């Protein structure tokens, strides 16, 4: 590496930069929560005055600060910093994981903070085997090596937890990568279409460009259900999905808020609706059972020729959101004055005419608004999430605990045991474990 390269590397490898970036990102992010994002230019001119609105626009704070060149640059620096900072430190952490701890010198062991000395009533070789078995029984499976006239045993737990922090770093990179994949290979679109219609296309949310689908979606019915209190309980689109390439027969299903429909990597979310000034009228001759269906609009005249019926809606009562509650209807057939009556939405009445009586039912038509998303990066993001949980759990709950036992001959066919250990985190809890272990060893009849 040349000197300049080295300097650039050192710059991006510095923790100081990471800390600065973390606090700069936190600080700048506040801006976009105070200044509303994604509103039309008029909104900003009105709320902040023309001058200020221009400044905000010039600084790219509106309409989309989080996608602005400077914020993205900050994110890029942060990402680069995260990568290089981790690459710079992983080798050291890895060395701790892969370290041959049997190479530790007996002198170093004597200086460890946690230690216990014991005497064993047998020769060093037998003693070493005894200690190994005792440690094994206590859950510490040790390796051993002969050393400077004695033998050393070593066991460790959770060595890989030294990598926990880097798992978290990698998880952040995965999440960012997933976001990028979604941005490049996916789309966010929407579609609004009325009951009875079929679509095989959607519109990109930003460019409004038409995006074709490889299957068809028909809206059978849109429905709003209410709680007894009058609050909305559910928005539901009943749809039929037709895709001869993938499905043997059309799939009838519902799209509900929180229960999207997924097909071919594209997900449909219930997001809005539109009451239409159109009504579906169903008529049934009560004597013959013959039925007729017609689509009506206000003050349009409709005929059912076979029965010589003419009818129409003269007036509607709708609420502010456009939902129709009541209709004023007229219906005529030869032999009598026209019948006029009122009927509530989705309810039926019987209309008496000289020739026959008819069931009359009327229902307002709705259009459903669906968000349509293709995001192949979402699984990369979710993998990142899983890794982040794993990394956090590892860092918090697992510590690298190490245990050495050094057995040396002590004359008279007896041996001396030096037990020592340490933990990189949760030291207090390990102190206790260590004391318990030493106690356990001492309970062995040959050890004192």
């Amino acid at each position, binding site marked *: 590496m040349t000197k300049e390269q080295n300097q650039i590397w050192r710059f991006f490898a510095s*923790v100081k930069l*990471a*800390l600065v970036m*973390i*606090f700069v*990102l*936190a600080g700048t*992010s*506040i801006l*976009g*929560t*105070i200044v*509303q*994002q994604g509103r039309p230019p008029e909104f900003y001119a009105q709320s902040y005055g023309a001058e200020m609105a221009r400044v905000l626009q010039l600084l790219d704070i509106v309409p989309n600060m*989080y996608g602005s060149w400077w914020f993205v640059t900050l994110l890029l620096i942060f990402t680069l910093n995260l990568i290089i900072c981790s690459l710079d430190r992983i080798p050291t952490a890895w060395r701790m994981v892969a370290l041959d701890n049997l190479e530790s010198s007996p002198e170093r062991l004597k200086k460890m903070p946690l230690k216990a000395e014991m005497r064993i009533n047998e020769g060093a070789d037998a003693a070493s085997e005894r200690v190994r078995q005792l440690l094994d029984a206590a859950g510490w499976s040790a390796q051993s090596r002969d050393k400077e006239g004695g033998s050393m045993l070593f066991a460790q737990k959770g060595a890989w937890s030294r990598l926990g*922090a880097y798992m978290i770093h990698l998880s952040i990179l995965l999440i960012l990568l997933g*976001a990028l994949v979604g941005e490049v290979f996916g789309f*966010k679109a929407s579609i609004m279409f009325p009951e009875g219609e079929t679509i095989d296309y959607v519109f990109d949310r930003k460019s409004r460009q038409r995006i074709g689908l490889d299957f068809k979606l028909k809206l059978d019915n849109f429905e709003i259900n209410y*709680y*007894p*209190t009058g*609050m*909305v*309980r*559910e*928005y539901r689109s009943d749809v039929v999905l037709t895709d001869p390439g993938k499905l043997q027969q059309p799939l009838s299903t519902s799209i*509900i*808020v*929180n*229960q*999207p429909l997924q097909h071919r990597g594209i*997900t449909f*979310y*219930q*997001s809005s609706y539109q009451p239409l000034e159109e009504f579906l009228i169903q008529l049934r001759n009560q004597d013959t059972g013959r039925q007729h269906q017609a689509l009506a609009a206000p003050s349009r005249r409709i005929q059912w020729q076979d029965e010589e019926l003419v009818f129409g809606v003269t007036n509607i009562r709708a609420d502010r959101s456009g939902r129709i509650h009541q209709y004023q209807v007229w219906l005529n057939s030869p032999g009598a004055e026209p019948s006029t009556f009122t009927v509530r939405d989705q309810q039926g009445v019987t209309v008496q005419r000289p020739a026959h009586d008819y069931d009359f039912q009327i229902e307002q038509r709705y259009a459903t608004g669906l*968000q*349509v*998303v293709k*995001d192949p990066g*979402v699984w990369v*993001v*979710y993998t990142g*999430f899983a890794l*982040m*949980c794993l990394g*956090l*759990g590892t860092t*918090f709950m697992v510590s690298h605990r190490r245990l050495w036992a050094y057995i040396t001959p002590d004359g008279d066919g007896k041996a001396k045991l030096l037990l020592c250990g340490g933990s990189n985190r949760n030291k207090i809890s390990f102190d206790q474990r260590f004391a318990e272990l030493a106690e356990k060893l001492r309970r062995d009849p040959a050890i004192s």
Partner: protein
Amino acid sequence: MESALLLNLTTFAYLASALIYVAILVFGSTNRTIGLTATLVTAGALLLSTSGILLRWYEAFELGFGYYAPFSNMYESLVFFAWCVALIYLGLEYIYKNQALGAFAMPLAFLAQAFAEHWPQWDQDLTPLMPALQSNWLIAHVIASFVGYACFAVAFGMAVVYLAKNHNVEKSGQPAGTGIFAALPHLKVIDDVIYKTIFFGFIWFTVGGLIFGAIWANSAWGTYWSWDPKETWSLITWFIYAGTLHVRYTRGWSGKKIAWLAILGFISTICTYYGVNFLLAGLHSYA
């Protein structure tokens, strides 16, 4: 509603608990009976609150709400927040065997509960869940976020203790402090409590607030991140605590500096929790 009565009583129980802990601290009491009373009153308050929350859940079920979870509006979430603070404090008391810290944690639980009960701004009516909230992620997301929030609140309380005691220690020159400060744990212990509660809270907040929130957002709105003010503020809070943990690990910061960061982090937490709902527009305006 029976649950309203229980939750109202909880307020007084938290108040009693807070007062006893403050008394223990101020009078430097070492009386075993008073200490036990404090713990029992707190546990009792927690039990009252738990029954209140569960009963409210049951009442919603009885009213035919169908899917419901008692964490769906500001009132319910504050009640749950107070519950978390009390629980986390009892955990700390058990681990550190020190009751002087209660004087800085339980008043927070009381304040949150009193806010919930008596702030006119939000109503306590049991209202059914709007469609966007009808998801199992509601329970996971809210519970985990609030455990995180409550940890940050406790860390904040401990940071205030730390700074007060530190001031006293510096002024008096006594390493253990004088007067009521002598009854408090050693500065190093408080520092350890601050760091551990922040780390513990950080895990809950990351997993519950950010990750569960993102997964839920993706299943409800089709996007796991939309820079909505609440999302952005949780990210800001996350950055602050992530920064705090990093300065501790890599630059060895402790004591006063960490205490100030704990305070900064909690201010950001309040912005995330309260500020965004009422001061800024966005997707989370319901809770």
